[in-house]
């Protein structure tokens, strides 16, 4: 239980605090600075998720809210060092369209109105298209807003956490077309090792079919214990120096500086 209040990204003061928080986090590392900073807009402590809607932001498109957050994170990073690579991990934004509000509607339908009391109110109040986020509408729009930014994406290989049932994340090509994109394979403690290896292999095959990756890493030693969040790929293009003097993105042969 917690207060049904959360910071709103339309508030410039909230964004400034986030920038300052990230800057101080990076400075706390001391002289041995990290090489990259990534953020995820989901599962946060403060209750603000992409679905957040308050009186301040109810008319503001979701892609703008996401962009504001990304800008705040980037500003915090850049205030410390222009050399740090900046990643947006899209977990929480690349769900299928049946998640979020529509999921609430389905729960209401299946419970025939006898579900939790808030279901009906939630389904009704957040029904207008401007009141609930939709991945297929909002994520592409957000990615377009980031055109030209010196940044990369990290995105899951599938919609959800590791599962054979999950289809391939359809947004991988969209992200990778515009920015260097790492594909993440979660191999968490919900699946035993032999089975996890099988699932990973399936995910790799799916990505290949979608031409999401040009090749796969040859990692001897699979499986390894614990959680693995993988990686792979840059887009194979050469990107110029960042507009703000940041390190920019180099091609695959040059690696990422």
């Amino acid at each position, binding site marked *: 239980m917690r207060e049904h209040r959360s910071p709103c990204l339309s508030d410039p003061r909230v964004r400034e605090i986030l920038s300052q*928080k990230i800057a101080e986090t990076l400075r706390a590392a001391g002289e041995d600075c990290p090489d990259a900073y990534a953020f995820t807009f989901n599962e946060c402590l403060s209750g603000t998720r992409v679905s957040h809607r308050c009186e301040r932001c109810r008319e503001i498109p979701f892609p703008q809210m996401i962009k504001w957050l990304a800008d705040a994170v980037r500003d915090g990073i850049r205030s410390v060092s222009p050399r740090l690579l900046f990643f947006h991990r899209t977990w929480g934004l690349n769900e299928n369209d049946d998640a979020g509000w529509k999921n609430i509607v389905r729960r209401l339908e299946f419970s025939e109105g006898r579900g939790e009391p808030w279901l009906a109110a939630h389904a009704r109040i957040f029904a207008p298209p401007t009141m609930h986020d939709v991945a297929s509408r909002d994520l592409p729009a957000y990615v377009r807003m980031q055109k030209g930014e010196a940044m990369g994406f990290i995105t899951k290989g599938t919609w959800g956490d590791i599962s054979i049932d999950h289809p391939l994340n359809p947004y991988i090509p969209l992200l990778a077309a515009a920015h260097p994109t790492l594909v993440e394979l979660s191999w968490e403690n919900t699946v035993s090792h032999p089975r996890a290896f099988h699932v990973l292999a399936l995910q790799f095959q799916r990505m290949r079919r979608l031409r999401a990756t040009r090749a796969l890493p040859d990692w001897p030693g699979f499986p390894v214990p614990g959680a693995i969040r993988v990686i792979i790929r840059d887009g194979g293009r050469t990107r110029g120096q960042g507009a703000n003097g940041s390190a920019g993105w180099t091609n695959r042969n040059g690696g990422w500086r």
Partner: protein
Amino acid sequence: MKPKGPSASEHAGTVPFPIRLLWGTTPQQREKAKAIGANWVVVQSFGHRRNDFPFFFAPDRRIAALRRRESATEVRLERALLREGIAHAHRLGLKAMVHSYEVSLPDEFRRLYPELYQPAVREYSELLPGGAGTPVALPF
């Protein structure tokens, strides 16, 4: 169904990958990352636990004072983990990435600056028995 084009194993080793990243928030994971050929690790992730922030928040004296009084142990621990993680990764020849879940702020902000925390849209808040700000289980 046979996949089109060269197999994964045929590709492996022929096309360089600039980033091969492993979630490596422990020394063991980082060493494993090195052993299996990864070149990056996520050394620390913030914003997923109640108070896992490596800062006092110096820009605000009130927040900083409160955190120095109540969260100094957590801050010191998180800073040590962050520094050790980065240093260890670099010693191993790995690049270090830091990750955070957003929007996450320490509880001190909620206590000192409640105006930063907005209730849900009016028609939803009004449905709550005690009005906006009533403690409820978040449905989303």
